[in-house]
């Protein structure tokens, strides 16, 4: 009988060990802090409430494709607030208000509601339901009072009161599709970055990188003696991988890039990979330090073609908001 008991104990020990291991893995991955966290500076796409209702009436399927899970700043008027103070309804700012958007505020909101009937922006994540004629609701992160619509052209609002217009940004493209010859990644950088932009220099025994370095501390509004640098470049699998069979191993390619740029870096399990979904795109993060600076890598895998790579090296992240705004325009 004794061996049977020992076997059961051992089995229990193994199971307990495995459970603890998985538990530890899951929790350590979830708590890792990243500097370039979209939640610190989310850009909400400005849109009037009536436009969503019009879109739903025209084609609810395409409305869902366009707006579901999208971070939006919906302009309307406050119709009613529930007694719990967490849920409320908004209607189009003008005209009939038989249609409303049901909004639920997240727990961190500490502000006050304007009087019923006042125009406002609700900033949050849009949810589109296809049930019946289609409806929409919002997980609201905050409110912004506004006497009228802020802009007729494409604009993005933030919780801290900034308004960002894509036509005040500059387009950049990275990579080239081998068949269509079209760029693989398109994004936009703040126009101010152009003043400190330089192409990445060619390194010995390396193909020239398709990318830029931004010396942000040299911008007129900063002129700091402490370097703050942002690199963005395209890693081309075909040009730079030794074994083309590794093309689909994005995570391991990201690890190899980190080790190439920071030789001797001890990349520990639990600190890599940190995965975050930013405006619907999947990114791999790695946060570390480099000779007295914070260094944060961000990778966007793009199939077998390569990776869009970003590296932020800084002591004082004075331009963190500007960099975070770039993520909104990555396509």
């Amino acid at each position, binding site marked *: 009988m004794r061996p049977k008991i020992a076997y059961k104990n051992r089995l229990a020990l193994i199971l307990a060990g495995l459970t603890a291991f998985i538990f530890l893995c899951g929790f350590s991955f979830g708590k890792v802090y990243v500097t370039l966290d979209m939640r610190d500076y989310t850009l909400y796409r400005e849109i009037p409430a009536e436009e969503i209702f019009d879109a739903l009436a025209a084609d609810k399927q395409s409305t869902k494709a366009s707006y579901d899970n999208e971070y939006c700043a919906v302009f309307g008027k406050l119709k009613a607030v529930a007694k719990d103070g967490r849920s409320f309804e908004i209607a189009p700012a003008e005209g009939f208000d038989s249609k409303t958007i049901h909004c639920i505020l997240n727990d961190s909101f500490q502000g006050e509601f304007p009087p019923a009937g006042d125009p406002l922006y609700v900033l949050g994540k849009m949810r589109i339901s296809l049930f019946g004629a289609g409806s929409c609701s919002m997980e609201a992160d905050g409110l912004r009072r506004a006497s009228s619509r802020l802009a007729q052209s494409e604009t993005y609002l933030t919780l801290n009161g900034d308004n960002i217009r894509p036509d005040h940004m500059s387009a950049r493209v990275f990579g080239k599709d081998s068949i269509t010859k079209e760029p693989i990644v398109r994004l936009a950088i703040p126009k101010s970055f152009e003043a400190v932009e330089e192409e990445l220099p060619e390194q010995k025994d*390396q193909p020239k990188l398709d990318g830029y370095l931004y010396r942000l501390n040299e911008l007129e509004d900063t002129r700091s003696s402490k370097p703050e640098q942002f690199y963005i470049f395209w890693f081309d699998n075909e040009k730079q991988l030794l074994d083309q069979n590794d093309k689909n191993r994005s995570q391991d390619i990201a690890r190899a890039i980190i080790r190439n740029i920071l030789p001797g870096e001890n990349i520990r399990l639990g600190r890599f990979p940190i995965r975050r979904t930013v405006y619907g795109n999947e990114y791999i993060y790695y946060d570390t330090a480099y000779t007295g600076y914070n260094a944060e890598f961000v990778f966007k895998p793009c199939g077998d073609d390569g990776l869009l790579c970003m590296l932020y090296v800084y002591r004082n992240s004075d331009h963190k908001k500007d960099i975070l705004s770039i993520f909104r325009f990555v396509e």
Partner: protein
Amino acid sequence: MKGRSTTQFIALAAVLISVLILCGFSFSEVKLKSNRPLIDLQETVKESSFGDDDTMTETDTKEGEEVDETLSEETEPVNTILIREQNVYYNNIRQTDISGMIGKIRGQSEDISVVLTDDYADYKNYKAVRDALIEAGIPFTEEMMK
């Protein structure tokens, strides 16, 4: 008995390997065509430093117990980690066991401030404190740095 324990050992190893793979661990590394750096950080970071001295310095602190050595000059507010002249102080008491220090402050993480010397010369301690905070699940934010 021997046969059974061998089987159990193999089964355990197989399960562990599967878990490691699931957790993202990879046994074969991806290799780039060239080992030369894609970006020369050393060069570019120094270029724009406007003469800032970024020399990394070694500390002379020893692992072990807390040293009862209070700051002789002006004192920092409570719940403050001060990194200065190659020493780490918490609540104005010099610390040599950073992990132990982090354990003590775990419950007060919301009020923690990290104060660094002006020239950031004490990089090793800065990195140790920063990593220990992150490892302990205490977010290291710019706001913590005064």
